């Protein structure tokens, strides 16, 4: 424990003291001290692999520490499992949401705690009433207790998981990366709830990659790096730069690289009247050579469908012109032939661009195997020669083509995803939330790669669930609402506030501000049909 925390230790209700945990000889946590007071939001910051999740798992009883101990209200705390932990007053909302998709929302929330009728069967009425009370208390609208979890969006599931933990009325609530699946307005809802819970006297542990969120909501911040605690500070004593260097152990040169080049006048992709399913309702877009075009919007406004339609995964109507030629794209193969590549990180963050147990070489050549076909065989030397320029130019890992991709860092894995499409000859790359759940250092690496490729004439469609990235990375931003592009901001034109205003449906900043200022039920607006 560092700085002023020592004097106040007594009012910390949950304390981890000298916790160490090693996996196969590698220290995931080394002698970590961490404490949470009642009534505070205490943020846990750190890069991927810094030990945040390991610490959470030790607290919740998923992992036993090798040494050190956890104390809850001055008693040793060693719950058998997360359920026991939650009943004892320490509720953890895990990154992987432990919900049963085929049960209803209320059944999930009161799983194993179901109110019973006199006959000993589950009381559905009791479930419904208890859920509704809980939702009211949380100000959670738009989710019905009897909906199947399967039918909910990832954001709504996240809210259900939080409600489930709060149903036990815990003294401590741990939110492990709870915002990573959420869009901007959902994030602010969650931050408000976290604040409210702290004001009610609960201790909140808030884990996030996003510095801005942490600074908005926390009272104190603890930074972990390589399994050790760098320090704990009250928010007021920290600066963004200081926190980032504490996380990285060095100064981050620049998260967003300097602009290398401006887009050319040539249109590389032109989209007219693109319609797909009920979510994409007529999109017009022009993407120029060397341009990074940001796509932003609340969850479910058609961004994902736009990317899937352009890549031939979702069925679509409309005109797609690539390099001046009208293309009919009905499958990923068609898209690849048209010179389009897709890197998609879906909401559940499972990487859909790599085969982790195969080598860098095999991953990179997969979409281009047809070209390496030499009388039915792949010649190893020819393949190595084929992939080596990309490994060199993008500086993938140790630059060893035989390295297994699963062993690479997150940033290098993303380079492999992008790199394999450079090899197909794609000049247009669709990047869907490539930086979701990625730490700051890796983000900087990815942005640098995008900037350099754009300067070389590659065009990007860039979607991110992080608004700050959309303001800083693209040349231009197109805002989607209700399946259409409602507004475009040229470079340097949009502030975060203006983007948000456009995202909630305002076509100009004035009406946008009006609807953003209103208090429409957030979840229903995003997840269910838009309520007027």
């Amino acid at each position: 424990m560092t700085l002023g925390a020592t004097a106040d230790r007594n009012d910390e209700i949950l304390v981890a003291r000298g916790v160490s945990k090693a996996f196969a000889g590698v220290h995931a946590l080394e002698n970590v001290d961490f404490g949470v007071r009642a009534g505070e939001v205490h943020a846990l910051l750190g890069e991927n692999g810094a030990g945040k999740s390991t610490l959470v798992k030790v607290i919740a009883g998923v992992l036993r520490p090798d040494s050190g101990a956890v104390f809850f209200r001055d008693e040793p705390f060693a719950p058998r499992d997360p359920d026991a932990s939650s009943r004892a007053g320490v509720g953890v909302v895990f990154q992987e949401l432990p919900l049963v998709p085929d049960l209803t929302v209320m059944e999930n929330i009161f799983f194993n705690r179901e109110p019973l009728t006199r006959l000993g069967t589950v009381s559905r009425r009791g479930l419904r009433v208890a859920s509704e009370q809980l939702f009211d208390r949380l100000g959670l609208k738009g989710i019905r207790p009897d909906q199947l979890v399967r039918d909910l969006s990832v954001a709504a599931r996240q809210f259900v998981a939080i409600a489930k933990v709060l149903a036990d009325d815990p003294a401590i609530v741990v939110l492990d990366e709870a915002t990573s699946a959420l869009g901007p307005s959902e994030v602010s809802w969650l931050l408000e709830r976290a604040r409210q819970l702290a004001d009610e006297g609960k201790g909140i542990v808030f884990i996030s990659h996003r510095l801005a969120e942490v600074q908005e909501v926390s009272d104190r911040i603890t930074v972990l790096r390589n399994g050790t605690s760098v320090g704990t500070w009250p928010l007021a004593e920290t600066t963004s730069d200081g926190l980032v260097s504490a996380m990285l152990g060095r100064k981050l040169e620049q998260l967003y690289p300097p602009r290398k080049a401006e887009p050319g006048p040539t249109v590389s992709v032109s989209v007219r009247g693109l319609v797909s399913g009920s979510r994409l309702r007529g999109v017009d877009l022009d993407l120029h050579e060397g341009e990074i075009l940001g796509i932003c919007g609340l969850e479910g406004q058609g961004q994902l469908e736009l990317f899937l339609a352009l890549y031939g995964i979702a069925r679509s109507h409309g005109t797609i012109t690539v390099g001046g030629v009208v293309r009919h794209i009905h499958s990923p193969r068609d898209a690849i032939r048209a010179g389009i590549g897709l890197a998609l990180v879906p909401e559940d963050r499972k990487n859909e661009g790599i085969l982790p147990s195969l080598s860098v070489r095999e991953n990179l050549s997969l979409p281009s195997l047809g070209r390496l076909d030499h009388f039915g065989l792949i010649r190893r030397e020819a393949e190595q020669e084929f992939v080596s320029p990309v490994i060199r130019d993008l500086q993938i890992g140790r630059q060893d083509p035989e390295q297994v991709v699963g062993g690479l860092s997150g940033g290098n894995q993303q380079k492999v995803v992008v790199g394999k499409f450079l090899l197909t000859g794609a000049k247009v790359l669709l990047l869907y939330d490539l930086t979701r759940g990625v730490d700051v250092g890796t983000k900087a690496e990815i942005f640098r790669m995008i900037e350099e490729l754009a300067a070389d004439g590659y065009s990007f469609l860039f979607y991110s669930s992080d608004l700050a990235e959309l303001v800083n990375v693209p040349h231009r931003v197109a805002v989607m609402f209700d399946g259409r592009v409602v507004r475009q901001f040229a470079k340097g034109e949009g502030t975060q506030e203006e983007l948000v205003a456009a995202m909630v449906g305002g076509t100009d900043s004035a009406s946008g501000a009006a609807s953003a200022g209103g208090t429409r039920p957030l979840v229903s607006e995003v997840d269910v049909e838009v309520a007027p």
Partner: protein
Amino acid sequence: MSALRATVIRNRPVLFAYVLLIVLGAVGEIVASGFLRINHVDELIISGAFIALVGVGQTFVILTGGVDLSIPWVLNSSAVLLTLWSHGSSGRMAWLTPILLLGGAAVGAVNGIGVAYLRIPPIIMTLGMSTIVEGGLLLYTNGGSGSNAPNAAVYLATHRWGPFPVIASVWIGVLVVATVVLSATPFGRRLYATGQNSRVATFAGVRVTTVRVAVYIVSGVAASLAGIVLAGYVGSSYLGMGDPYLFASVAAVAIGGASILGGSGNFVGTTAGALSLAVLAGLLPILGLQPAALQIVYGCVILGAVTLSSAKVGARRRAE
């Protein structure tokens, strides 16, 4: 160097299968001296060859994350129809063979279409097909079976060139072709990609449905070929002769180090698996165990392999 090391690391389970084979052979020789004399080894190779022939198809299918349960009745149909239609004539066998292989391919194609396009779970699809083929065969033959197997089939299955069984050359041929296809062709690469993660493969432009249909066709043809050779080995055909090969094929793939859930493994491993099963079958009577004990072994091997594969997948998920 690095490439070689990577290959060794990736094929560790395959190496383990060969270690197991050597251990089993050594145990046999210790328990019953003469177990490894050339004549007996030939017998073991011949009985292993049938498992290997059905195993090649099962390997391809399992690599994509599927399983083919229609093997025994495709094999059985092929054997029965060969003896029934050829009347023991090798001349007729010459034109019957391609027809029977084509029949196997057709059953495989239906399996593949069901799995790939109609998205029927492989276990259900191939079990259904197996039952349909079985019923069709029973209806057609009225429960009877044909006459003797043609001499050519007998020659293929039982003859030896000196100490070298003819069927071993078929096996080696299949081994070479399967290994080249799996390791050095675009199709092989796409097959592994499909088995590891079909979504990633689709996103990379792989026609996953085509790959799936192709592997079931390979399995149908292989099972049909195994039926022809097995008829030669037995000298005739009977209903139910394919039954032992259902679990033997899966067990051979599993012992051979393939992930039973798809994505990793190869036919070099399955070859060791087939030989190990043949050696084991030879060991049991020496140890005073009933042949039925072999079925217990099959069951344990398959369940063990599935447990191991799921544990590995689970560990990978947790590590992420």
